[in-house]
């Protein structure tokens, strides 16, 4: 008998079906992967299990008993713990304060010492060393994740749901996490592992349930799967090319030169420290590092959104240090921003209105200050076709498009300007395989057409696949630039964790 069974579960949001007749059966003590593209219904299913949503149809059986899970509190009481992708920790509080936060047993005066003792014993049992008195904000991302896991265990979780746990970790930290997960299952815990990374499933999971368009495609033991190509085909529904073909670069003129660039943020922290590099047309320079190590500041200093403290930025020979964003964009710079919702697009506006965000002042779009909506509309329609943006009409509210199509809209708009310098930050974060591969091909095509590409990504595979050279950042400093031929995942992983390497 399975430990957890979800039988014929369906969930509808209005007329949209997020899950249809899903059967999920998880055995005690296994690591069960939930695999699917974005929008396949993984998160909805887990949110139902964790009590965030009520399911429309079907039932949930836990330990052979049918259960009704009203809300997350109820889920925790029934032994279900969830570690979200974005941690639910309070940075200013200590580890132990975060752990006991919101516990029902808490008395008017907290006995943190006793709790800390119990917590430390538990951490030791699972081979995790953590100082219960350390402030959460001083911990590394990996350690914060361990706090989240231990927090769930402290609440006596016997089923742990991990939502894309490796997204924020370095390769070495991922290894540590997997080691920990195996220990947990050895202790009898059951783990559901949500991911869309195929390597990880092959490496750590026992069985795997694949979702597509809200339905279960198949549940299978990993040992029955040949390779990740097979998994990918199951997930997408057709054969996919997993590797993007990248012909060798023919570097042209220098399009970007950054010298001794430093930036000090509001809190007085040196977010960028003495960065120097250059980039030539036709070349792809990958910037890799764990999220939040200065990548964002680097891109913003180049595009004029932040004013550097010192150093210089030259774009196509023109001094752009601390210049106005409009002047820098005018140098032939296109920028695919890290967060399309905060910067790249306006969700309340139509596709049409979004596509002119960068070009509304050009003679093609306006005449004496009046927008030429007819011409714009025709051009937008052409762009949608060219870049495969699926939308009922260019007058559709862009927020109604799927994430992949929103991103294609941003990418299409930026590439349509035929940039000399393309800055792409996480250009395919959170997208499904199809859209990811499409956008990667477009970026390669832009570089073949002569653009210099600065590609910032946290996905090592992507960096290794596309880059000609790779720059590694750690805490705002450059750990070195490697040629593609001398870069390996292990070597990059060490550098991302702060080990300086001289270029070979």
């Amino acid at each position, binding site marked *: 008998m399975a430990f957890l069974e979800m039988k014929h579960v369906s969930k509808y949001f209005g007329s949209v079906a997020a899950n249809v007749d899903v059967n999920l059966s998880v055995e005690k003590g296994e690591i069960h992967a939930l695999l699917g593209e974005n929008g396949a219904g993984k998160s909805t299913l887990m949110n139902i299990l964790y009590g965030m949503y009520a399911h429309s149809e079907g039932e949930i059986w836990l330990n052979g008993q049918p259960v009704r899970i009203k809300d997350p509190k109820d889920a925790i009481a029934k032994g279900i713990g969830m570690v979200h992708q974005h941690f639910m920790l309070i940075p200013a509080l200590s580890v132990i304060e975060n752990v006991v936060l919101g516990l029902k047993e808490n008395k008017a005066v907290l006995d943190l010492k006793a709790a800390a003792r119990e917590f430390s014993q538990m951490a030791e049992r699972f081979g995790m060393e953590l100082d219960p008195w350390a402030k959460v904000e001083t911990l590394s991302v990996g350690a914060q994740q361990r706090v989240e896991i231990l927090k769930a265990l402290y609440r006596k979780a016997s089923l742990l749901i991990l939502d894309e746990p490796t997204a924020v970790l370095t390769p070495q930290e991922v290894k540590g996490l997997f080691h920990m997960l195996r220990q947990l299952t050895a202790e009898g815990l059951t783990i559901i592992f949500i991911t869309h990374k195929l390597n990880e499933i092959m490496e750590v999971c026992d069985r795997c349930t694949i979702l597509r368009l809200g339905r279960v495609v198949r549940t299978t033991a990993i040992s029955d799967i040949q390779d990740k190509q097979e998994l990918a085909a199951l997930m997408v529904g057709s054969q996919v090319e997993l590797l993007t073909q990248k012909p060798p670069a023919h570097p042209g003129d220098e399009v970007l030169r950054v010298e001794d660039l430093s930036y000090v943020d509001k809190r007085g922290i040196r977010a960028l420290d003495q960065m120097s590099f250059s980039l030539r047309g036709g070349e792809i320079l990958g910037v890799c590092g764990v999220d939040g190590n200065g990548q964002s500041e680097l891109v913003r200093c180049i595009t004029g*959104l932040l004013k550097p403290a010192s150093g210089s930025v030259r774009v196509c020979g023109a001094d752009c240090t601390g210049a106005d964003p409009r002047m820098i*964009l005018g140098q032939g710079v296109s920028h695919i921003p890290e967060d399309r919702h905060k910067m790249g697009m*306006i969700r309340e506006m139509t596709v049409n209105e979004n596509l002119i*965000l960068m070009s509304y002042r050009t003679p093609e779009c306006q005449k004496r200050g009046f927008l030429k909506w007819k011409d714009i509309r025709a051009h937008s329609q052409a762009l949608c076709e060219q870049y495969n943006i699926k939308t009922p009409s260019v007058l559709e509210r862009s927020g109604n498009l799927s994430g992949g199509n929103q991103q294609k809209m941003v990418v299409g708009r930026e590439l349509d300007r035929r940039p000399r310098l393309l800055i792409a930050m996480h250009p395919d974060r959170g997208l499904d395989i199809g859209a990811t591969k499409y956008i990667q091909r477009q970026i390669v095509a832009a570089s073949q057409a002569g653009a210099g590409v600065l590609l910032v990504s946290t996905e090592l595979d992507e960096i290794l696949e596309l880059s000609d050279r790779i720059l590694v950042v750690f805490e705002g400093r450059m750990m070195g630039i490697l040629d593609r031929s001398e870069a390996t995942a292990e070597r990059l992983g060490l550098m991302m964790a702060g080990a300086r390497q001289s270029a070979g």
Partner: protein
Amino acid sequence: MTKTWQERLRAGLKGLYFPVAAILAAVVLSSIVMAILGFDPLYAYQCLLKGAFGNTNSIGETLVKTTPLIFAAVAFALPMRCGIFNLGATGQLYIGAILGSLVGVRFAGMPAVLHIPLMLLAGFAGGALYGVFAGWLRHRFGANELISTIMLNHVAIQLLAYCVAGPLKDPATAATSTPQSAQMVASVKLPVILPGTRLHAGLILAVLCLVFYYVFLWKTTRGYEMRVVGLNPGAGEYAGMSVRKNQLLAMLLAGGIAGIGGCVELMSVQSRLIQQFAGNIGFDGVAVALLGGNSPVGIALAGILFGALSAGAGRMQMLAKVPNATVYITQGLIILFVVGRELFRIRSRRKNKPSSRTAGPRSMEKEAV
């Protein structure tokens, strides 16, 4: 944006659903209040409707009340589209009226085609300066415009009170204590456009103001910039737009429009500056804009509704003996339901689409009809 008329109609009808529901709910609730107070709500509303639309004259009165509301509503809606809350229409209207009156009491005998635009220009300048001042306070010192515009309203109210009691006091009545300015001269008097009523050409100016609002925001590059900045300042900066410049310009235009609204009142129903001559117009304008979803057509419809409520209140009080304060209850409830609906929208979005975390309370406005 070219849409077929069917698409427009469908979008328009969809947009009407919530405001109409809010109005109906408010009417039902205030009916209950009336019944509790011992009045017959059906008869009361019958009187109110008659007073607002019963004959040519009452329709004229309704539109006379609608006119200043439209100016005040646009003065709120335009900055709102640009991400800045202008609650200062009252103050901008008063300053505009004070400056306009300087022109309006002089130059008797100047042709109306010159004199009227000149006075409107003075009113625009006064309101615009006052509006842009609040915008400047926000960008220079980080002063929240919600608070600064309200405080500036009080400054303007007191300034007007001082002016009509002192420097601008009508010399003809200097001996009496009535605080009022001299009468506007005949050449700035707006002509009546519906014979037999008080309805004046100010309504045409109000409609032009709505047309400007629509054309400016949806047809020009500057208006496009403003909407981008208002909906997503991050995207605006990313595209090289200046949030500061756009918001200052929005406040300048809004203040100017409020100032014109003040002058139009002086050129029509009010012929002199007196204390508090615009009453609640400033804040009623905010309600009209919110009820109308900040869209041009919505503002026109909501303006007529609020105009009708205040025009019909008199007759309701006279015939059904219901105190006209009841109308304020209805108006207040409408606003409450409209704002409540926005909260509901934000909540339901959070619940159904966990991915749209960035939705802030500022995404209050709707697509234009």
